[in-house]
């Protein structure tokens, strides 16, 4: 990664912080390593790249991507919470969802984990915590065990895709921390998941 790209990123951040009134006064710190981003096809909602021409529309000043021809330089947030929000919203890492009382990885779950593995291998400065979660329909104690199994299914899959096992930790929350507090299938479907969380090394 060339120094000029990094400098370019810093310039863009400074530019954005001048343009946007909502920006923090202090320029955000630049992550120590800028990286090449994943392919745009994997980004669901937020545009991957920001050019100088569209800098005014940037709403995430801490989160920056610069593009020049086909090479992308990216500055990731230092704040771990912000980093996770960005990484999830851009699909760098993605949660895996499960069927009721099941810990096997569906095709969708495998796709999510494959994309996550790709990004994790390129961003070795982060470790991964996988939280296993369950919907409320089971019992608390059995669901803690089920969540453990779900989290480890994802861990094993990421390892087979080449992510170093020592970078991955798992924890089961069972049904203790639902993402959606509702009591219907749409809520339950959201709550049966492996939640991927980036953590510092």
């Amino acid at each position: 990664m060339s120094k000029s790209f990094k400098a370019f990123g810093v310039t863009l951040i400074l530019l954005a912080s001048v343009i946007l009134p909502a920006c923090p006064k202090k320029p955000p710190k630049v992550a120590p390593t800028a990286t090449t981003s994943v392919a745009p096809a994997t980004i669901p909602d937020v545009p991957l790249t920001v050019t100088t021409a569209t800098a005014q529309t940037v709403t995430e000043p801490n989160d920056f991507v610069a593009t020049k021809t086909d090479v992308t330089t990216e500055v990731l947030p230092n704040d771990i919470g912000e980093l996770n929000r960005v990484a999830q919203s851009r699909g760098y890492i993605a949660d895996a969802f499960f069927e009721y009382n099941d810990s096997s990885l569906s095709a969708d779950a495998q796709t999510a984990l494959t994309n996550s593995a790709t990004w994790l291998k390129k961003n070795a400065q982060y470790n991964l915590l996988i939280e296993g979660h369950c919907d409320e329909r089971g019992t608390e104690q059995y669901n803690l065990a089920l969540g453990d199994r779900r989290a480890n299914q994802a861990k094993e899959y990421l390892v087979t895709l080449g992510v170093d096992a020592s970078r991955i930790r798992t924890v089961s929350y069972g049904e203790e921390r639902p993402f959606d507090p509702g009591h219907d299938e749409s809520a339950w479907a959201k709550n049966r998941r492996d939640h991927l969380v980036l953590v510092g090394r």
Partner: protein
Amino acid sequence: MKRTIASLVLLFSAALTLLGNRVIAQTQVQTTINANQAAQIARIAVPRPETALPLETINAPFFAPLTRDLAYSGVFAIAPIPPNIPAGADLAKAAGAQFVLSLKINQEGQDYIIDARLLDATGAPTQFAQRYRGGAAALPRMAHMLGNDLVRTINGKPGIFLSTIGFASDRSGFFEIWLMDWDGTNQRQITRHNALSILPSLSADNERMVYTSFARGTSDMYVISRRGGARTRVPTGLNLNTSATFSPISNDIAFVGSVAGNPDIYVVKDDGSNLRRLTHDSSIESTPEWSPNGRQISFTSGRSGSPQIYTMDAEGSNVQRISFEGEWNDDATWSPDGSQIAYTSRVNGRFQIRIADLATHQSRILAGEGSNEQPTWSPDGKWIAFQSNRSGSWQIYRMRVDGTDLLQLTFNGENKDPDWSKKGD
């Protein structure tokens, strides 16, 4: 018999003086009234205490819990005293009671002195005469002690009024471990992890609890005194460390440990040594619970394709399936005499408490509104506490094993994971 009970009471009072709430039970005369002579349920009249103290200082902390204990004892029925009884009238006759409990309360310095005598239907004193002494904070405890002594006098068995129920409550902002008395009073916070802490289990002597906390970002087992204070992590080297439960006969803890996503039943000493794996299936195993004699362990396994209840010997052999009905059963817990298992069983899409007889394999459902989970037996086997979301939030309830006398015990925040102490006196 007489000597045994007297020395028991003295032993107990010696232990109690070590506590913060100092209570002294001074045995004057103590004996059992032949249970055959007493009716199955003894009608007892409990007139207001004779005292020069303002009644409001006695009523809420002492008299109310005492009459509540007796009313729910299953040994006594409170015989209501008709209004406007002239002084010196025959109370037993007026109330149609077999016994009258005579209470005299005096104050000496900071201490309350309670003299309790049991009179028979003729107004003559029985051999039950007990003195209790302690500060104002100890009045509820003195009420429960007197209740236990009266129950033991009638049926020779220990009462449960000094039993406690451990549970998890989020009223402080996080789920933490709490304790309450058997009647739902005296709810106090035991752990202060400021992190998710759940599933307490009381030790056989009712002195310690083991539970799971996520305080380190992983789920770990901790042991803490029932008076709070410092907690000790029980290191296992495994994941999960959930569903921890103290052995009734040793310092062993049964729990769910996991290696590489395979949750199994393990046993470890409370200092983290002597780790033993009891189940070796590739399926999910969870929720161990010791039989009262410590020789067997019940658990939940998904080996049949759905969570079902099994038992095994405490070394892991002789596995037997207990539950066959329904596609989700969990939370098995043994009756104090070891003859029955109560568990959570899904019936028509909702969880209910089911009680199965281990000899006959017959089971019955204690149906209630909402979802009803995590049953736990009272030390005398007459009650079950459980959690239900019938009110719209998770709360802890108590009912008799036949489903009657339902009582909600918690009201603040969400409350779950009840564990009733094995000791009640």
